[in-house]
C-alpha cells in the first residue's frame, strides 16, 4: 500500500491535482482512497461529479461517532475511487487540526484506511500539529509538495519542508519528501524555477503541470480532466504524474532554505 500526501499553499491546485491523480491511478486499476483533510471539504468533489459528500466530522458533530459505519463516510466516485472528506468546524471556532486527528482515529477504527494507494489532500500549510497528522505515525510516508513559481507558493512549500525535516527526525518518523509537483501559474521561466527549488532542497521535480484552460472547463462540468477530456494533453500529464509517483523510490529528508536563500533563488528567475 502506497500512502502519499499532497501539501502546498492554499489555492495552488492541490485538490485539482489530487483528484486527477486519483482518477489516473484508478484508470490504471488501482484501489484508491482519497482523503480531503481541509474544512473546505472540496477535495473529492470533482470525483463525485460535483456533489458535496457528508464529512467525517459532520457525523462526529451529530454525536453519531459510536454508531458510525464506513458507508456513511466513504463514498465511491469516478472509477470507484473511495472518497472521504474530514470536514471541520466553522471558520473562527474550534480546532480544525484536532478534527483531522479525530478523523484519522475514526477511519482507523473502522478499518477504512486501506487500498493500493491512499492519497491525503491536506489544507494549505502545516499550521499546527493536527495538519501534520498525515505525516506522523506512519500514515503518509511520501509527501509531495505542490507549488507554482510564485514566491509565496515556494515559501509555503519551503515551510512544509521544515515540518517534514522535523517529523522525519523523530524516533518513529517515517515520512519523507518524495518530490515536488510544479503546478504552472503561467509565469515566465516557471518550470526552471520550481526545478531549481526542488534541487536546492535536495529533492527533485517529479512533474511540471502546465497551465491549461481544459482544467477550468472540466471543473465547470464537475469532472476531473481525466474523465472530461481523457484524450487531452493535460490528461496525459496527470497519467504521467501517476506513473511517476507509483515508480518513485526517491525519498529524502529535505533541507529547507533560509528566507534569504529562497528570495535569492526567486531573484534568479523572476524579473525584478
Amino acid at each position, binding site marked *: 500500500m502506497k500512502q502519499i500526501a499532497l501539501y502546498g499553499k492554499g489555492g495552488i491546485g492541490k485538490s485539482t491535482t489530487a483528484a486527477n491523480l486519483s482518477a489516473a491511478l484508478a484508470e490504471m486499476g488501482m484501489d484508491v482512497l482519497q482523503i480531503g483533510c481541509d474544512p473546505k471539504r472540496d477535495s473529492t468533489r470533482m470525483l463525485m461529479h460535483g456533489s458535496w459528500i457528508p464529512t467525517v466530522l459532520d457525523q462526529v458533530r451529530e454525536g453519531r461517532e459510536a454508531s458510525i459505519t464506513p458507508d456513511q463516510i466513504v463514498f465511491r466516485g469516478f472509477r470507484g475511487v473511495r472518497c472521504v472528506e474530514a470536514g471541520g468546524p466553522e471558520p*473562527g471556532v*474550534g480546532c480544525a487540526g484536532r478534527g483531522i486527528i*479525530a478523523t484519522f482515529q475514526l477511519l482507523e477504527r473502522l478499518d477504512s484506511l486501506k487500498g493500493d494507494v491512499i492519497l491525503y489532500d491536506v489544507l494549505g500549510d502545516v499550521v499546527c500539529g493536527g495538519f501534520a497528522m498525515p505525516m506522523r505515525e506512519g500514515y503518509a510516508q511520501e509527501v509531495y509538495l505542490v507549488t507554482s513559481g510564485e514566491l509565496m507558493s515556494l515559501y509555503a512549500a519551503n515551510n512544509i519542508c521544515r515540518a517534514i525535516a522535523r517529523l522525519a527526525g523523530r524516533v518513529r518518523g517515517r515520512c519523507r519528501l518524495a518530490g515536488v509537483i510544479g503546478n504552472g501559474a503561467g509565469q515566465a521561466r516557471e518550470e526552471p524555477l520550481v526545478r531549481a527549488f526542488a534541487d536546492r532542497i535536495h529533492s527533485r521535480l517529479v512533474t511540471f503541470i502546465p497551465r491549461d484552460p481544459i482544467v477550468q472547463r472540466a471543473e465547470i462540468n464537475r469532472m476531473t480532466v481525466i474523465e472530461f477530456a481523457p484524450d487531452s494533453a493535460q490528461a496525459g500529464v496527470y497519467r504521467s504524474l501517476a506513473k511517476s509517483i507509483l515508480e518513485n523510490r526517491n525519498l529524502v529528508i529535505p533541507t529547507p532554505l533560509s528566507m534569504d536563500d529562497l528570495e535569492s533563488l526567486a531573484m534568479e528567475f523572476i524579473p525584478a
Partner: protein
Amino acid sequence: MTLNPLPWSSFRLEGCTLTGGLSVTTEVTDGVTIIHGPAGCSQHNASLIHATLLDHDTPHLLRIHSSDLDEVGVIFGGEGALAACIREAAAGDPSAIFVLSTCVVQTIGDDVGGVCRRDWGVPVISIPSSGFLGGGFQDGMRNALIALGDLAGDRVEREGGITLVGEKNLEDDVEENFREVSRLLALLGEKVRLRFVRGIRGADIPEISRGRLNILREPELRAVGESFAARFGTPYLDSFPVGLSGSLRFIGETAGFLGVDPAGALEEERAFQDEALAGFEDLRGERISIGPSSGDTADPFAIELVSSLGLLLSEDGVPLPLPSPPPVGTGGLVRLLHRWRRVLHA
C-alpha cells in the same frame, strides 16, 4: 494569545489559575463556579481544594459545575457547551455565576467573555484564567478578586470599616490570621467590614466599595489593591503584618491611612509583645539554625525574633522550621515559638 511566563516556583500553592480562581469564587457561598473545559479539570481542582479543606477540618460542598467539554467541543468550539452549562447553573438561582476557563478553551479560542456577557438573568462573570496557559495559582487568585469587583458596580458610598482582601483560604491559619489582624485593628478602634472573599454572599460583594481602607493579604496582590483604588478610590495597605517590628509598623501605617493617632495602640502592642516573649524565656541561649522559608536568606522577621529572644544562631544548632508564608502578627509569632519549643525540648 497569552504568553504568560510560568511561575518562577511551583512550591506549595502553585497550581494553575483554576485552583487560584476557585480558592476565591467558592467562598461566595450562594454563588456557582463553572469550569469551562474537560470534566477532569474540574474534578482535579475540586478534589485538590476539598482535600485541603478536609485537612483543615473545614470541608464544605463546593458549588462547581463543569461544561464537560469533549472531543466534539474541542473540534467545533465549546461555546455551546458553556452556554448550556450557564443555563443549567442559572436555573438554580445563584447570586452570581463565575466562569473559569481551562487551557484547551484558550487553545481553541472560545469567546468566553462574549458568552458570559449575554443576558442570563443572573450576573455571569468571566474570570481571566485559561488553566496553566493563563499562569499559576497566584494569577488565578488575583484575576478572580479583580473580576469579582465587577459585581460592586460603579457607585461608591463610603461608610467606613476595613476590608481584608485576598485572604489565603487554603492556608492552615486563615482564621487565626484573621483574628490577629482584627485584634490589631481593634487597638485602633477599627473593625473588619468585609472579608473579600471568604464566606460571604453575593449580596455582600458591593461592600467592597464602602470601606475606608483595603488591607491585602500579601504584596503579590498589589494589582488588586491598585484596581480597587482606581475603581472605588479606596487606599490599600499591601500586606498583613509580619514580625515584631512589622506588627508595630502595620499599626502605624493603618493609623496613617485612617488619620488617627497610633500612640496608644503602639504602646499596647509593645506591652503585648514583651509579655508574649517573656513567656518563652526558657528558650534563651539555645543554639539553633533556621533555614530559608523562601528566597536565599532567612526572613528578616525570623532574624529579629531570634535576636529578641536571645537565641544563638549556629550552623550546628538545632534546625527549626520556618513556615511559608510567614506568620501573621505577634500572635503568629507566638504560635511559631510554641512549635520551636516543641522541637527544642523534644
